[in-house]
């Protein structure tokens, strides 16, 4: 029986990821207290993307999965991104 031994992720790694995620959350709340104008939405979305990346990579085990899982996830996020870009191209230049 072929059996792949799944990688056991240490507890320590998970708690470190959590601390990073919480720090990013507090940072994103703190940054809204400063008025950055139109840049604030960009900053908020960049921080959210970094948080989502950490959740996907470590909590959702993409780091330890076969590469095709990563390729599929990138593909799906690309579709969403392209949809947003095309929609805005339409709204801005129609």
């Amino acid at each position: 029986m072929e059996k792949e031994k799944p990688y056991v992720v240490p507890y320590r790694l998970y708690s470190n990821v959590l601390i990073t995620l919480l720090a990013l959350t507090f940072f994103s709340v703190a940054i809204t207290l400063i008025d950055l104008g139109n840049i604030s939405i960009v900053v908020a979305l960049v921080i959210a993307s970094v948080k989502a990346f950490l959740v996907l990579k470590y909590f959702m085990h993409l780091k330890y999965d076969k590469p095709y899982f990563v390729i599929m996830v990138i593909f799906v996020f690309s579709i969403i991104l392209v949809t947003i870009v095309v929609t805005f191209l339409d709204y801005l230049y129609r």
Partner: protein
Amino acid sequence: MEQAKHIAEHYDPEASKIGMWLLIFTELLLFGVLFVIYAVYRYLNHDAFHLAAEELDTFMGAINTVILLLSSMTIAMATTALQKRNKSLTLVLAGITILLGMIFLVNKYVEWGGKFAHGIFPGSEYLTEMLSQGEILFFGLYFVMTGLHVLHLIIGIVLISVTMWKINSGKVHAERASLLENSGLYWHLVDIIWIFLFPLFYLIN
């Protein structure tokens, strides 16, 4: 006969994982389209969205973010505990995840209840007569997107409850950890959606 039955029993963790990811992709696309709608309406109603967002409590949103991040860690740790054959710790960690999910629901109930008390709910008299088109759109999207998110959270709680029951009865164990891993994946999806909902609805100053 019993022997033959046992061998025929099918267990393919990789296929199960692909299945769960495919479901997650459809969910991501569902919410992705809602984010596109949000982006366009926010672009068209910039000032109204900022005005309407003042109604939302950033502190409450931040607390809910912390709760979900914490619960994501505990369900991820539950898989590690199961692989290390620590059944009781697995159940405790999964139980904490469900408890945190419940606290999130209570917070949302308080939040929505507060809005309802102020007459802000889809189709309310106050909303349609007192507020501008942009503000109505903001609250419409707020209720639809957080509502859909909460629905997913409830499904996640049910999924983890079933998993806990199967861990307890010994059907899910270190060699058959797939159900727990996939329930975890679903729970992280709920987390990721909230990671984007939080800044878009609560962090507009």
